[in-house]
Each structure stands twice: as C-alpha cells, then as structure tokens.
C-alpha cells in the first residue's frame, strides 16, 4: 500500500513543480492560491478530521499569520519574518484561545472559536495602526537564500517546498502515537480519559499545531497578495476552509488539498462563465453533504475499492 501511495505523491509533486513551465501566468497564480489554501485546509483537517474538534474560528490563526508577516516583513524581509514569527505568533494565540475553548465541546466549541476569531476581525477592522478596513498593503516578499521569490516561478518553488514539508510533517503527526490518541479522542473521549490519557493536553497540543500551520498559510497568503485585510479574520474565511475540508473528505489531509483545489477551481471557472458562482458553490456543497459525506476522497475510495 505504501509504495503506490508514495509513487502517486511523488508524481503529483513533480507535476505541480513542472506546471509553471507549461502554463501561463493566470493558471500558475491559481495553482499557488490552491497550494496556500491547501495548507490552511490541511491544518483545519488535523483538528476536524483527526481530533474531531470542529472549529469555526480557524481564521484567527490565518489572519494572525498574515498580519504578523506583514508587519515583520516590512522591517526585515527574511525567512524569520516570513515563516518563524507568523507561526510562533499564531501558535501562541492558539495556545491562549485553545486553553479556553477546549473546556467546552460541540456547538459551544464552534461558538467560542467563532467568537475569538471575530474579536480579531473586530479589532483589526477598527484600529488605525493596522490600516483598519483597508488592511496593510505593500508587503514585500522575503529574501530566500538561493531563490528569487519575487518571480512567479521562484515563489512557486518556495510554496511547493513549504507545502511538501508541512504535508510530510502533518502526515507524520497523524500516523504517530499522538495522532492515534487524537483519533481515539474523536471516537470516544470518555474512554480515552478512562484509559488515563490527559485528553485536554492532547487536544490543546493539536489546536496549537493546527494554529501554527494556519499561521504559516496566512503568512504565505499575505506574501502572495502583497496585502492583508481584516477579511482574513472574518468567519467566512473559516467557513471556506471548512467547505474545502468537507468537499475533499475529512480526516485524510490529501482531501483537504483536493478540496482546496475543487473550491478555487470552481470559484474561478464558474465565475468566468456566470456571476452565479456562489449559488453553484452552495448547491455543490449541499449535494456533497447529502450524498457524498466522505467528500471527493470518500467517493474515490468507494469507486476504486481502496481502503482507508
């Protein structure tokens, strides 16, 4: 099972890497957007699909990553500003928000995470030092040793390497003993507690890891656009990541990437033909929830007879 999967992953990576050589600017930018949202969706999938913690406030960490990168890159455009600081800040925020949020579960967890992310939205929307409504603009891209990320292809390579590293790390995490405990908590929290696991500590750690990765995604997003607005914190950002994870298939990581691709392609393709893309997106999503709860990956597994 491992070899075909490894081979398939390698093929996908090669195809993604070679894509800019054969495609115009617009498709490459679209692909880059997919890669960034894919990272964000994967981080949410770690929470939702593995630990069973459905957060409606994951945008908090995406936004923090974006804003911290914007502020830090303006002062010193290096990898520390581009990756380390945003991840650290988002991780710290996740530690704080998670500390409070994991005390409740289900709908209350959804509402509490939502409230925290909306607080950031409200704050950034109203304070002038972060540009209020208009956000921060003119964010430079970092100086990466041996790579010019100001070019389309350079940035593409940079994104791919980061996506690859983060995907590998997340895949390792979900297959580690820690990942198995998370799945156990998802299945039956009371039983894990009874078995002697410090459930809250595991949940908090999962929340922090997901926050860190989301922070990186947010930072990449502001590097990609050269700007960041309070919209990054808005609950629709969390909602869209949620849509991606569901469309792709929860608890699969790879599904999150597929979901991000499906979402962004649908958005850009449909919106070139008709203004009604939100309608089609909503309907697609409803159909997925009704008829394909396992998402794209679930549907593929059923069709090809693959096991999980």
């Amino acid at each position: 099972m491992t070899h075909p999967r490894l081979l398939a992953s390698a093929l996908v990576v090669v195809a993604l890497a070679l894509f800019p050589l054969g495609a115009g600017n617009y498709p490459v930018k679209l692909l880059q957007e997919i890669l960034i949202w894919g990272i964000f969706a994967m981080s949410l999938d770690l929470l939702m699909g593995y630990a069973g913690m459905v957060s409606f406030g994951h945008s908090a960490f995406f936004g923090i990553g974006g804003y911290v990168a914007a502020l830090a890159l303006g002062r010193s455009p290096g990898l520390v500003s581009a990756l380390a600081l945003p991840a650290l800040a988002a991780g710290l925020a996740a530690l704080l928000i998670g500390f409070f949020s994991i005390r409740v579960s289900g709908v209350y967890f959804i509402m509490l995470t939502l409230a925290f992310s909306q607080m950031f939205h409200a704050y950034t929307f109203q304070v002038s030092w972060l540009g209020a409504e208009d956000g921060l603009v003119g964010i430079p891209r970092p100086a990466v040793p041996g790579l010019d990320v100001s070019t389309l292809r350079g940035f593409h390579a940079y994104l791919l390497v980061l996506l690859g590293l983060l995907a590998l790390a997340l895949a390792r995490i979900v297959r580690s003993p820690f990942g198995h405990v998370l799945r156990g908590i998802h299945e039956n929290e009371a039983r894990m507690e009874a078995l002697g696991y410090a459930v809250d500590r595991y949940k908090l750690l999962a929340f922090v890891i997901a926050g860190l990765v989301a922070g990186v995604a947010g930072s990449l997003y502001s590097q990609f656009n050269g700007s960041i607005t309070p919209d990054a914190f808005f609950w629709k950002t969390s909602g869209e990541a949620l849509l991606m994870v569901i469309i792709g298939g929860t608890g699969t990581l790879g599904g999150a990437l597929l979901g991000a691709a499906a979402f962004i392609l649908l958005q850009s393709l449909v919106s070139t033909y008709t203004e009604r893309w939100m309608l089609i997106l909503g309907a697609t999503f409803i159909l997925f929830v009704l008829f394909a709860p396992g998402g794209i990956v679930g549907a593929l597994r059923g069709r090809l007879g693959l096991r999980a």
Partner: protein
Amino acid sequence: MPGDLFAQALNGLAYGVLLFLLSVGLTLIFGMLDVVNLAHGSFYMLGAYAGLSLIAGTGNFWLALLVAPLAVGAIGAVIERSCLRPLYRRPPLDQVLLTFGFIYLFEDLVKWIWGGRIRSIPPPDVFSGSVSVLGAIIPSYRLFVIAFGLAMAVLLFFLIERTRLGAIIRAGVFDAEMTGGLGINIHRVFTGVFAFGAALGGLSGVIAGPIQSAYPSMGVTILIPALIVVVVGGLGSLKGSLIGSLLIGQAETFGKAWLPEASMLIIYVLMAAIVLVRPQGLFGRPLK
C-alpha cells in the same frame, strides 16, 4: 443628554426585540432538532426581500407582514423535509454544514432576483412620522417594532407554556425520542417547528426592512448576533432568548455610542465570558 440616553435605550430595545424574533426560531430549532441552523439569517433576508416585493406590488405593509413569513415558513418546511430529515441519523455536524451551504445559495439567489444593491423599504403610512418622547425624537415605526416584538413575546410565551402544542414542543426539546415514543408524530413536529422558526425569521426580516433596508449580506450580518443571543441565553430556552436579545441589543447600541473603537468587540467578549463561566447560558439546562 438624558433624552439622548433614552433614545439610545429605545434603539437598543428595538434592535433587541428584532433579535428576539430571530433567535426564538433559532433556539427552538436547536432545542428540538439539535441543528444549529446557520441558514437562519437567510430566512431573515428572504423575509425582508419578500416583504419588499409584496409592499411594492400591493402597497400594503400589513399584507406583506402576513404573507412573507408564510412564504418563508413554506421554504423552511421544504428544506427540513427534503434535506435535513435524511441527515438526522448522521453526526449533528452534517446538518450544521448543510445549513451553511444554504447561506451561499440563498444570498446568491437574492442577488439574482433582486440585484445586489441596497433597497430601502418604506414603513407603513401610519408609522412614517416621528414622535417626541421625553425630549427625544423617535421614529414612530421604532415604537411600533418594540410594541409588536413585545406582543409577539407574550404570544409566544402563551403558545409555548400554556397550550397543548406548546407542551408537545417543550417535550420535544427536552427529549425528542421519548416524545416520539409516547405516540406523538415527532417527524411532523420537527417539520412544523423548523417551518415555524423559519417563518419567525422571515417575520423579523419584514419588520427590520424599514429600519435596516434590504441587502444581500443582511442575513450573515444578523446571524452572528442572533447566534450569540442563543448561546448567551441558553440553547433551547425561550426566556433565555428574550433576556439575551435585550441584553445584546443594549450592549451593542450603547457600545456603538460610548466605545466606538471597541463596539464590535463587546458582544463577542460578553459571549466568550458567559460560555466560559456558564457554558449552558443564562437560562439553559446544565450540560450533560
């Protein structure tokens, strides 16, 4: 200044009763069906737009106030029958996500039919003027909204607490399976409650029209405060919904006047504090 304060309090009260009409449906649907209906704001928006067309077509606000909620309630019934019912055996999250899809669907549908720009809705002629109360000039329509909302609150309390139908609904909120076991057709009650909640959402949309106008994102804008009300008041609690609405209405209105920099923060901080100190909300049943 006291007149100003009074005017603010009345504005907050008008906003509060609006939130109440909206959150009652949300809280009943949650209590009964275990579904956090994220499309509830869409019902509010649909109500406002249906009201807009009915008023434009007939020139009669009162007719719109009656017919628009019925139409929205019918849409709710169709959604419950066709989409939610097949999901009751699945994890509750699937239903929440389904209603999330409807937000996109309805918002775009409204843009398609009515266009994307803000459409103002005239108040009924009787309430088109203003009155002076304690030195404050108040649009008389706002006073009507307050009176109407409070009257609806009394009516709803009577319906839920004093009638046989209300007893069935309360029983369903307490334990739907057991209620079904006692010979009540719980599926029909589910559809009824969802449709009734949707109709109340539509009703609040019509009522809100002359104050807030109609625009496509009005549904998602009101959804978050309404959810906050439900969580603060306690999921499934009618009393909680009323107290929560009035509280959030005042908090937001006075927040905007006194602390404009932090106004948007206040209600979120309020909710986070309540969820942490008393997760079941002010009037909710203790969590299992």
